[in-house]
């Protein structure tokens, strides 16, 4: 359990940074923006407002999940705090696991606070638009979305950890992490489009298939539509599968990160 002190310290360090409060403030500002954008919508303004609010929630979570592990790991390594940690009876793998779990704990707190902010914001949008939405059901659905965002954040944090070990530039690790997230969102659509098209060669179809199974699929976690459209449902099997997917994929990425980190000179 030598990773636990590192996880605790990483959590404390992350939530005390200005970045943490800053992200929550941005969340609030974007909710206000969502409300004003919903006012401009010609059709179902509540759904448009909720769509915007949840999309911002989704992307801010991704940004948080990329930036926290990258910044904390890079700071440790570049400022040599890692020397103080690894001079204690802590193995490199425990250090990395501690950094990862500490970042996850910070993400959980961020999502916990965001859940309240977003729920209040979404209900506020419907209230000001003077349209009825069943509050309990909406909050339940936002809660489920929050859980799926946590899983997405867990996988994305594992990749951010990996990129922090792989690259020597913090900016590069952050950019690549976010690009991976964006491509992971679109990969499923690209695959469907390519496979159904007659213009794509069999080789390219195969390549896209390989890429689809190799790269993480972040669209699995996108339950925004479920949260907004009350007629949609998510089965518990689907949720169990994305939990399993996250666990297996994150473990694999963390194992590779550990293997690399054990060979890295500090």
């Amino acid at each position, binding site marked *: 359990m*030598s990773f*636990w*002190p590192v996880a*605790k*310290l990483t959590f*404390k*360090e992350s939530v*005390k*940074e200005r970045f943490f409060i800053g992200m929550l403030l941005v969340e609030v500002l974007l909710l206000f923006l969502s409300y004003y954008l919903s006012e401009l919508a010609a059709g179902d303004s509540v759904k448009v407002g909720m769509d915007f609010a949840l999309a911002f929630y989704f992307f801010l979570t991704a940004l948080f999940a990329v930036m926290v592990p990258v910044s904390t790991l890079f*700071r440790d390594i570049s*400022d*040599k*705090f890692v*020397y*103080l940690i*690894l*001079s*204690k*009876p*802590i*193995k490199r793998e425990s250090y990395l696991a501690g950094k990862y779990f500490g970042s996850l704990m910070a993400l959980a707190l961020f999502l916990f606070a965001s859940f309240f902010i977003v729920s209040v914001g979404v209900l506020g949008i419907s209230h000001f638009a003077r349209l009825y939405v069943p509050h309990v059901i909406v909050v339940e659905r936002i809660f489920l979305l929050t859980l799926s965002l946590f899983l997405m954040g867990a996988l994305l944090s594992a990749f951010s950890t990996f990129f922090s070990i792989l690259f020597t530039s913090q900016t590069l690790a952050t950019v690549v992490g976010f690009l991976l997230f964006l491509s992971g969102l679109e990969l499923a659509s690209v695959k469907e489009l390519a496979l159904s098209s007659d213009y794509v060669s069999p080789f390219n179809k195969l390549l896209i298939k390989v890429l689809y199974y190799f790269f993480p699929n972040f669209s699995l976690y996108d339950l925004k539509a479920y949260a907004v459209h009350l007629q949609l449902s998510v089965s518990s099997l689907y949720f169990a599968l994305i939990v399993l997917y996250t666990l297996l994929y994150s473990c694999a990425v963390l194992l590779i990160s550990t293997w690399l980190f054990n060979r890295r*000179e*500090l």
Partner: protein
Amino acid sequence: MAVLSVRNLQKSYKKGFLKGESVKVLKGVNLEVNREIFGFIGPNGAGKTTTIKAIMGFIFPDHGEIRVFGKLNTDVSVKRKVGFLPERPYVPLSITGKEYLDFCADVYGIPYYERRKKYLKLLELVELVGVEERKLSSYSKGMVQRLLFAATLLNEPELLILDEPMSGLDPVGRSIIASVIRKLKEEGKAVFYSSHIIQDVERLSDRVAIIVGGEIKLVDSVSSLISKFITGYTVVYRKVGESSLLSKEVNRQELWPFLEKLRKEGYEIVEVEPKSLSLEDILVSFIKGSGGTV
């Protein structure tokens, strides 16, 4: 059994765009540290920090063996007996001093009921009592360094490895650290430290190693080393029955004939004071490649 033993430690780094060029920074370093204060000195780029990084397992040597208390340095369990402070250490400034001490206490599994007493004792040692609840961002650099130094003592290490512990400290801070190092030695602990403040090394160390260009040039006790570098003597004497003192500086070869001459001429010898190179002069002579007369 030596507390720390380094045998034939070699390390090279790849340089250049394609990493084609190899630069050898450690060329077979051999060291043995017992329960003593061992100073490790050398010019910038001599390999002091690289040696310490290799000892701590932060970098991987090309060749050689490092043992701490008889076990390989890669064995994490030996770190329970070791305290380490890097050069210009950094800690996340958003946490408080106590949170950092709590982190260290968590790592060593120190129970909560023992912590308060331990923290107080250590903070007293480095004269930081009363600031532990403050965020580290409000500490001066010297205070951070003293806090981290105190934290390295939390597990009561048998071996303390310090990379430039005095650098960046004001004279008060240096004196605090020096007195703690002396106290640790009295308790039978081993302290291995690098420094470029030669006066501190001369004052504190039992033995020193001089490293130049990745090679250990010399390992000796400070007193023996300085005596080997005696350049001459100041002889103070007077005529028997007179009170006024006379003095003359002579070199090593002239000393005995001069003393004999004084005796024959009826002079009383009051004092013979050796004139030696300082440790700093000795280091400079090694750097310049003169090598001295050891």
